[in-house]
């Protein structure tokens, strides 16, 4: 890397940091339990809007993995999400009614909160519909992984977004509060992904899966990115450059091996396609608060009108992480 690009990236990182610093004013603190955070605790960071129905399971899932504290930004929910979160002893809540889009889809807010509260902690940045799966997650808690990463001097851990979907129409996949959404939408595409390398920042750009297949077949280059690096040993100098897809400094994006080997990686099971989705895409389209003029939601909306079945006879049904490992969607690397 030339000094020039190196300096350019440094400036970029500084810029995102300043931006996060400025955006802190849009956040209003509702509950602050951060004093309870202990030095070795693993923290979850998340932004959400109107996710009341999903919250109980979301919190339970990550508590069971061993997450000790949740730092959440509520973007002006009106369905009682905030009230529910306020009652939780391990949640610190911020609220904002400012534009999600102008906070770069929440990234600026979370960058700020990570700068403040994430320093020297393992942080997991996930949405409420994303469920982190890693090698041995059924037998080893999350801090087994982070201890191992620490011992191996690895600072960031990749987990590709794996879109899960139901069989039959999305509207029929009714999700009830407290339920595991993967039970409702257990299917996924096992080998339908394309990989490109972003030369500048060094991250991989992954596209494909059911969303490309169903909604972006005529404009595949616009299919949403599936690469994510949600688990990072945070330092206050780090920033997420674009959602959790890429980080700066760019060494953090080196989560893949280029010499034929496999590094350890996980998956984020993405339970987006539930009955809540049609309604949500409606609303999001009206709010125009999503990436690139919400083109993603426009595509969903047009296709969804036809009540499509994302499922096909080659879809795989989710069993456990070992299945994902065998299918080559994630890897144990040298963790045994």
């Amino acid at each position: 890397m030339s000094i020039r690009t190196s300096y350019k990236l440094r400036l970029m990182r500084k810029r995102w940091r300043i931006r996060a610093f400025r955006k802190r004013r849009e956040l209003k603190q509702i509950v602050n339990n951060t004093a309870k955070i202990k030095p070795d605790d693993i923290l979850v960071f998340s932004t959400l809007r109107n996710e009341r129905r999903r919250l109980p399971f979301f919190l339970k899932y990550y508590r069971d993995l061993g997450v000790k504290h949740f730092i959440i930004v509520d973007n002006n929910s009106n369905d009682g999400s905030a009230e529910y979160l306020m009652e939780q002893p391990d949640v610190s809540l911020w609220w904002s009614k400012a534009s999600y889009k102008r906070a770069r889809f929440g990234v600026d807010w979370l960058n700020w909160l990570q700068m403040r509260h994430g320093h020297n902690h393992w942080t997991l940045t996930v949405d409420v519909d994303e469920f982190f799966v890693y090698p041995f997650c059924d037998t080893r808690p999350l801090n087994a992984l982070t201890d191992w990463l620490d011992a191996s001097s690895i600072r960031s851990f990749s987990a590709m977004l794996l879109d899960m979907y139901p069989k039959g129409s999305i509207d029929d996949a009714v999700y009830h509060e407290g339920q595991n959404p993967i039970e409702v939408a257990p299917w996924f595409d096992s080998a339908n992904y394309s990989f490109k390398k972003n030369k500048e920042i060094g991250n991989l750009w992954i596209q494909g899966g059911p969303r490309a297949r169903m909604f972006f077949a005529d404009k595949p280059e616009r299919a949403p990115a599936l690469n994510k690096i949600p688990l990072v040993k945070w330092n206050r100098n780090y920033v997420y450059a674009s959602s959790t897809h890429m980080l700066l400094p760019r060494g953090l994006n080196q989560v893949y091996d280029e010499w034929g080997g496999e590094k350890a990686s996980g998956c984020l099971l993405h339970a987006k396609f539930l009955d809540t989705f049609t309604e949500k895409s409606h609303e999001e389209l009206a709010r125009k608060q999503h990436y690139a003029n919400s083109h993603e939601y426009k595509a969903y909306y047009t296709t969804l009108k036809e009540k499509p079945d994302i499922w096909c006879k080659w879809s795989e049904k989710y069993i456990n992480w070992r299945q994902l490992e065998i299918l080559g969607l994630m890897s144990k690397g040298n963790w045994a």
Partner: protein
Amino acid sequence: MSLGFIMLVHTALDRAAQVARHWATRDCPIVIHVDQRVSRRDNRKFAESLADLDNIVFCRRRRCEWGTWSLVGATQDAAEMLLENFPEVRHIYNASGSCLPLRPVEDLKDYLQQRPRTDFIESVTTEEVPWTVGGLDSERFSLRFPFSWKRHRFLFDRYVEIQRRLKVKRKMPENAVPHLGSQWWCLTRQTLSAILEDPKRKQHDRFFKRVWIPDEAYFQTLARLYSTDVESRSLTLSKFDFQGKPHIFYDDHLQLLHRSDCFVARKIWPNANRLYDTFLSGDRTSMASAEPSPEKIDRVFTQAIERRTRGRTGLTMQSRFPRDGWENGKTGSPYSVFEGFNCLFTDFEPWLARRTGARVHGNLYDPRRAMFAGGEKNYYGSLSGNAMLRDYDPKAFLTNFLWSTRGERQCFQFGPNDKQAITWFVATDNNAQVNVISGAWALTLFHSNKNFSTIRKEAARLQKIEMKHLDILRSPYTKARVRIWTLADFLEDPMHHFQVILDEIGPRSNRRLTEVPTMVDLKGFGRFLQNLKNQGMKPVLMGDFPVTPNSDIQKPDPQKPYLVR
């Protein structure tokens, strides 16, 4: 009382205390060295928790850093103390705070009792060690290493470089031959005291202070000078990964550890409650005199290293994205590409499927959509047959396709009418078997009902594409197994050519070929080619066809498609 432990502790003190208590209450004296970096408060708490046991003593604390002399120093202190305070000890076992006994101490004692003069210390000469980190093996001894590898890597590397350039070569102490091995040894009092009480110990220590990672060299080298019976293996089960750091054991390794019959394992994750509860409970049954057999565990960890360094062939994923040439094989399994065969034979695909048992697809790179076998819209892995998606990343399409169908031979058709972007990839893939009948596409034109001027233009276009394609297949970079026949050549002896192809594909075809697919009607094809020539286009890829209709080209009788040889 015949066995004593040295225990080096720096983290997870509560676990270390648990293990120390386990050994001490079973009549094994222990000398513990606590790293100076442990805070005074934690150390006091740790010492207090073991204060009720009078066969545990603590030695002088040093600041220990990986790869430096401090570790050997700490071990020496502890060993001296152990030998002095507990004169009845015969074997001294060097352990760490993250060790865990897997078998009852009685087993270990019996085992050592039966081998009273044996020193268990892994000790191999530098020439035979494949596992050294950083490319340093014999240089560990011949150079000096005053800088920390962890904290001052730059200085470390530069200083090594300078010494190499100056051809620095330190002299080994008298009679000593460099040996390396695991620092988790078990030595007899005789050997250990001989090392520690040697009149030349000062010289030895001075030499090893500047050796790199002396804890893996000091006792290993010196034991060779004094021991009468070195058994070059460690009684501690300890595995190292490709970067030289120890593998860690978790609760889910319980069964593996159980079956290993090793005495002690390292390193255990401090929160592996089930392991600690199981192996430290008092009611462990003795396994009599079973020999340790770590092979099963070895296999698990060898596989892990293999996966990390070589990966799974043909897989591209979020954490495996090989650079060009580093794939260890571009695709997951062997496959065959057939070009021109479905132009020459009307029922080629079902015939091939029948003959080989392979999955035979149509033109996967057809401009309209991928023609999967059985007319499927999607295929394994939910791979979409949509042309736009496929052409967005044609390579990923093929690698995905071959990855998720691995285990079953795949064959597909290809031709100049298809999207050509994949050519280089297939040509440079040694899993590919490419069979080409060049110019066969002309038969389709010949049978089409189009105006001749359109046909001529089309023929010129396809010929140009195919020539370019063949140039690539014939390039020196090609790794695929390529066979190219002109149409005329192929027709000379189709049975023979098929036999060669099928033999290579698989075992199903080891019987002699008795049946060939139905050939299209070739009558007048020579004339057709001549017409193209007359119109100013030069068909070159088909080979030489005589113009006269009564040519000597053999064409199977359409009524009898079955040929018997």
